[in-house]
């Protein structure tokens, strides 16, 4: 009797969990769509990778209906909340039902942003969407649909290294963009830029993509007044120096964008000292006339930097020579690194447009570079001393050996 009770309990226990687990896995939306072809099959195929699906959400959580019903009519009954495929213009609002609800989103991630929809509405994309534009970007244009991956998933189209390509899928398409009167060569230019090279070729995730300057959900064109702030996100010291310089007021008054005026926008190339000064490729002469104060300051700053570069080069040669002799020059190399840091600092301080400040830094750098040179020279003279000392020691030893040899010979003869 006792054994029978246990057997019944076990059977009931197993059946309970079998029914429970079975109930969890039945999703007639997926089963049915998997059996379809083409566009109807695609959502079911992609959903396995979808971040929503992985967090326990499924088709009916967005599209409504009753996934437990096998019958099409019953499953997609509007009375059960079925809304089907939203219209393109409605997609931001569709996604925002959850993504703009902090209380709901906190269940999945307490730190997740919920202001995307508000930002989108402020963006150029959102504004056009509100006007009924059918081509403008909505959520799925960037994030894909049914198979939405988190932004830190390298396969996501909005993973940092994939962003330029995703933006370019519309913005580099001349046919698609013809109604918007926007240039379509941004991607081509970006690819050639120092930022594009770092992000796309070197995979440096710290390098800026389109969204770093234009924003993502609130994507918009930075105006002249805000360009400096955009660049300052990374180049903060340079921007601070610029903001305190006489150039700031001049740029503001003339409505010239700050950094962009010299460095460009999408095609920002690696800087060189040739950009500074009045000769050759010097950019300063674009605005500063000959004999003006700015003209003179530009020449002075360039001259100071060239002097430091020459000093470092000379020190490097001396130190390299000592190193080739097999001498330890780690201290001198340390100084050389510091001198190079001064050179980098002086290049940054060019944005203060103060010849005194740049001169002060380069002077400091030349002092450090001279120290390195002196250490290199000492190492070379130490090398020569060793050679001379060695020669003297060998002569003395061989002289003693010869004397000893003669003594032995004389002694053994006698």
């Amino acid at each position, binding site marked *: 009797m006792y054994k029978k009770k246990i057997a019944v309990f076990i059977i009931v226990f197993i059946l309970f969990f079998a029914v429970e687990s079975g109930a969890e896995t039945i999703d007639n939306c997926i089963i049915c769509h998997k059996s379809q072809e083409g566009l109807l099959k695609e959502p079911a195929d992609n959903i396995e990778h979808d971040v929503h699906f992985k967090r326990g959400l499924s088709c009916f959580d967005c599209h409504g209906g009753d996934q437990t019903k096998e019958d099409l009519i019953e499953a997609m009954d509007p009375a059960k909340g079925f809304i089907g495929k939203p219209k393109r213009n409605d997609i931001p609002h569709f996604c925002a039902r959850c993504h703009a609800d902090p209380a709901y989103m906190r269940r999945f991630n307490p730190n997740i942003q919920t202001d995307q929809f508000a930002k989108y509405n402020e963006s150029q994309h959102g504004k056009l969407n509100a006007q009924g534009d059918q081509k403008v970007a909505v959520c799925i244009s960037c994030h894909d649909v049914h198979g939405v991956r988190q932004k830190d998933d390298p396969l996501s189209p909005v993973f940092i290294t994939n962003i330029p390509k995703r933006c370019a899928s519309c913005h580099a398409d001349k046919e698609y963009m013809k109604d918007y009167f926007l240039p379509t060569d941004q991607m081509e230019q970006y690819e050639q830029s120092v930022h594009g090279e770092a992000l796309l070729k070197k995979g440096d995730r710290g390098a800026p993509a389109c969204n770093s300057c234009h924003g993502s959900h609130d994507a918009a064109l930075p105006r002249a007044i805000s360009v400096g702030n955009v660049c300052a996100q990374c180049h903060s010291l340079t921007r601070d120096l610029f903001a305190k310089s006489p150039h700031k007021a001049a740029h503001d008054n003339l409505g010239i964008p700050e950094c962009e005026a010299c460095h460009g926008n999408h095609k920002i190339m690696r800087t060189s000292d040739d950009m500074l000064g009045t000769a050759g490729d010097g950019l300063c002469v674009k605005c500063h006339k000959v004999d003006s104060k700015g003209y003179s300051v530009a020449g002075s700053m360039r001259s100071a930097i060239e002097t430091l570069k020459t000093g470092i080069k000379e020190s490097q040669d001396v130190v390299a020579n000592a190193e080739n002799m*097999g001498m*330890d020059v*780690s*201290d001198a190399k340390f100084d050389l690194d510091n001198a190079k840091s001064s050179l980098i600092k002086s290049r940054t301080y060019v944005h203060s447009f103060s010849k005194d400040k740049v001169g002060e830094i380069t002077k400091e750098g030349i002092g450090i570079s001279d120290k390195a040179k002196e250490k290199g020279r000492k190492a070379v003279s130490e090398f020569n001393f*060793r*050679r001379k000392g*060695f020669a003297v*020691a*060998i002569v003395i*030893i*061989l002289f*003693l*050996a010869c004397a*000893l*040899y003669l*003594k*032995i010979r004389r*002694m*053994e003869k006698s």
Partner: protein
Amino acid sequence: MQNLPKKLYDWFDERYQITGFKDFFAKKTVPVHKHFVWYYFGGITLFFFCVQVVTGILLLFYYKPSAAEAFESVKFIMNKVEFGWLIRSVHSWSANLMIFSAFVHLFSNFFLKSYRRPRELTWITGAFLFFIALGLGFTGYLLPWNELSFFATKVGTQIAGSVPFVGHYLRTILRGGEEISDATLTRFFAFHVMILPLVAAAFLGIHLLMVQLQGMSEPLSVVKNPNKRPMKFFPNFLLRDLFVWLLLFAGLLTLSVMFPWELGKKADAFAPTPAGIKPEWYFLWMFETLKIIPSKILSFDGEVLGILGFGVAGMALVIIPFIDIWSRKEKRNPLFSIIGIFAIIFILFMTCMSYFGPQK
């Protein structure tokens, strides 16, 4: 004042009977024959040992035996200490030359059968001194705590761990734990600067005393030669020794200045073992032999058998005066000479294989 040296001599003689020593050295001779040149190698080894002691003491003033400071302290010696670069380079070159001359001294005496009665103890102490020299080389190699020495010591102590029965304990004792660490460095330092030099001094004392008391051994081929021309030890042979030492000192300085011993990169215990890590040249033949021994010989572990083989060979080397029954009877027999030649060919071949053979 003219009598001061004599007064001093008399003062010492009265107390320590130095006239006896003087008479002994005056009468002491060295046999002269066609193998005479090999007699110099004992003195050469002693010369390099003395250089090691002097330069080693100088290095001790600045060396810091800890994993955190060892490399930096050697770097400091080489770059900041006056003539530190020279002292360290001389120490390293001299160590290698000492082991080389010890090899030559050992094998020359082996072929001349100098271990014959009554010089058994001289041979045994000499064999132990040879092992101690190898031990000094092994322990000293780690002390700069650079990448090469770190991983070579790792391999070396790993091999020691394969010794049957006591291998694990031996490896743990050598390493001061399971891995090469600060503890390994401090105990290698203790071995290198205290334990092994003390033992070496004791053995060297006995070895030199025996050489002085019993004189140089004569090879069997010349022992019955009636035309022998003995050379006075003092001053003739000693001055010749001094002459050789002066030339060697010049050579040692040349090597140290022209080819200063490099320090390399600091050891990083977490870095992967660099490719081509090898022990010092004098261990290469054993290292190469262990590499080519099959992993299993019958049902025995190949490496264990190899290590046992080296152990047996080492033991045989020590007790050879008692094994070579022909030389004990002052009879000539080529068997041991053939074994010696085979050993030299084997050592040279294996060393060359390690340098020039296919790298695994």
